[in-house]
């Protein structure tokens, strides 16, 4: 721990951890007590309204990275760095119409992987599951590690204690309340985060004028104001595409699209993006003001908390601590729920236990959440700081999924073979670029190669997909589905095993037949 970053007494931190732990678990229990059915537990009864929908999008997207990394981007890359981080909101803006489309195409859908399986077949599903699970687990682990490290840095509470409390609390209320608890707590957490960032930004503006900030930076670090700071220019689209990839593929966002009431998804994601957009800009401004305030930054990701602690004293330190706790909790709970959905519906119900009833799967889901929490805690307990940075290598993987998802939702001609090749070769080339060309090229190259393959496959060997095939009942309700449909479902998946076969009569007819049966 670097001396100079601690802003809060450990005893105060323990009281705050205790209070908010009790609050989140109690609220989770209260909101989730009615979640008896599987879709009630996993998708909040598919009845989430605009306010909760927008709040959960904001809270989930405000991770510890937003409150810690956005100021770091501004401090390291100046104005462009601040704007580059805020481009992550474009992921939410573009996902807004996609959320509406997803809800229309799959009114009974459960997961993003289910879409990929029905749209492209099992090979694409397998690759996509690999990407999704890698991303979700590394995100969750990085949040667990960040939680422990930040709590230790802010207050001196030992790393393992902080990590354990955060993971245990999030796992507890997700287990008792499912997505209802996650979305409900997200609402409160998003309010806390917004208030915290606004209060610190206002306190900063009261302490130092924009002119002073500008003069200080212009005199001492003029490169931070340079619109042609090359590395920052490179980071703009790298960051934007990383953000698009994260939102487009992750079941965290898909599960919310399924959970929102009909007609709500588009508005909720647009509103969520609008509310999220100024947060990294405000956080970045706080970082740029640090030199004008005479604040030394001993640890690059601690600039935000240090400014808050300096300007607002003990109250600011408490505020920052609660904001950090809320931002990490709001991401971990969402990841626990969404990843559990993936494992329960796509792996357990889809592969391992096809005849499981909804009640049985509801119980499986609880055990999966517990297992994920325990697994994450075990990895975080290794105390290897390099683990937290693995997430940054996910850029090529998630970038390679952008085009298969977007084209799969809008182009009938997008083919299974193209999707598989796009994800595999996009990931491989992006990873190669990460190590050979530099970190700022990875997501760009991965997405670019993936795009080229999807477009080429559409031109050279177009498929003809029937959208009705996406309206099949999920694996989760196989107990209610006739054996004919289950067989047809299997047949559909099998026909999609081979790239390009979907132009054949079988693959064209099976979805239509299914839709009539439905």
């Amino acid at each position, binding site marked *: 721990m670097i001396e*100079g970053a601690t802003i809060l007494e450990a005893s105060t931190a323990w009281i705050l951890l205790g209070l908010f732990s009790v609050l989140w678990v109690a609220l989770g229990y209260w909101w989730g007590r009615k979640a008896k059915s599987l879709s009630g537990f996993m998708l909040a009864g598919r009845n989430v309204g605009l306010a909760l929908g927008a709040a959960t999008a904001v809270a989930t997207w405000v991770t510890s990275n937003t409150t810690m990394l956005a100021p770091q981007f501004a401090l390291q890359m100046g104005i462009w760095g601040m704007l580059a981080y805020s481009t992550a909101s474009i992921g939410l803006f573009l996902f807004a119409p996609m959320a509406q489309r997803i809800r229309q195409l799959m009114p009974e859908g459960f997961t993003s992987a289910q879409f990929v399986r029905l749209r492209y077949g099992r090979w694409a599903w397998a690759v996509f599951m690999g990407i999704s699970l890698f991303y979700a687990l590394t995100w969750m682990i990085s949040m667990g590690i960040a939680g422990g490290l930040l709590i230790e840095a802010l207050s001196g509470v030992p790393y393992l204690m902080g990590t354990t409390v955060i993971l245990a609390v999030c796992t507890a209320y997700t287990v008792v309340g499912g997505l209802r608890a996650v979305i409900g707590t997200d609402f409160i957490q998003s309010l806390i985060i917004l208030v915290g960032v606004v209060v610190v930004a206002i306190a900063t503006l009261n302490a130092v004028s924009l002119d002073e900030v500008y003069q200080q930076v212009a005199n001492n670090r003029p490169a931070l104001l340079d619109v042609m700071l090359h590395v920052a220019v490179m980071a703009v689209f790298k960051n934007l*595409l990383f953000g698009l990839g994260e939102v487009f593929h992750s079941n965290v966002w898909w599960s919310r699209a399924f959970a929102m009431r009909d007609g709500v998804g588009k508005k909720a994601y647009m509103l969520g993006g609008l509310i999220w957009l100024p947060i990294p800009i405000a956080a970045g401004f706080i970082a740029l003001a640090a030199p004008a305030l005479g604040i030394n930054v*001993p640890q690059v990701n601690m600039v935000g908390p240090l400014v808050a602690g300096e300007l607002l004293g003990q109250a600011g330190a408490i505020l920052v601590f609660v904001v950090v706790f809320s931002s990490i909790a709001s991401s971990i709970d969402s990841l626990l729920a969404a990843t559990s959905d993936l494992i329960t519906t796509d792996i357990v119900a889809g592969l391992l236990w096809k005849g499981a009833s909804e009640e049985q799967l509801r119980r499986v889901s609880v055990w999966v959440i517990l297992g994920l929490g325990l697994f994450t805690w075990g990895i975080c307990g290794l105390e290897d700081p390099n683990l937290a940075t693995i997430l940054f290598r996910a850029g090529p993987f998630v970038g390679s999924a952008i085009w298969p998802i977007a*084209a799969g939702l*809008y182009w009938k001609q997008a083919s299974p073979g193209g999707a598989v090749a796009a994800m595999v070769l996009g990931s491989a080339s992006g990873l190669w670029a990460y190590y050979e060309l530099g970190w700022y090229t990875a997501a760009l190259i991965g997405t670019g190669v993936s795009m080229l393959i999807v477009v080429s496959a559409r031109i050279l060997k177009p498929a003809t997909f029937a959208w009705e095939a996406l309206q099949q009942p999920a694996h989760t309700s196989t107990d209610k589905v006739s054996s004919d449909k289950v067989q047809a479902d299997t047949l559909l998946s099998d026909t999609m095993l081979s790239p390009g076969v979907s132009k054949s009569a079988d693959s064209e007819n099976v979805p239509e037949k299914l839709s009539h049966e439905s």
Partner: protein
Amino acid sequence: MAAGLCLWWASLASAAPRLSLEGDSQAGHVTLSWQPSEGTLDTPSYQVQEASSEGFGEARTVYEGTHTASVISGMPDGVTFYRVRQQGQRGWGDWSETASFRVEHPSAQSALTLFAFGAFIFMATAAVIVVGNRREAVEQAEAKGDP
């Protein structure tokens, strides 16, 4: 044993902190961190200087205080030199060994090429979604109008 004692005595006599740095030479930022000289009992104050020449002809103090690290960003191309000293009961001690950091920003050509490449991919992606939604809206309107 004797060699160890000699080293310890030498470091105590010079009373200079140990300076290390870690940064991204392409992005132009560096984190300086330093350890107090051996035998330091209280929390000392430190002074950190940077200069563009090894002789510290036009040195600039970038930090003075009790922290043991400092982040410097927005650095221009070229080599920057750093040194640190600590204040004890007898005033300022010796300067540490000099540490240097070379910054070499990527070329404007590569930055703009990647920017343009990224912009193209983004616009193409957005076009798929926007056009797809517009087409869907038209189809739905036609379906509603069709008895």
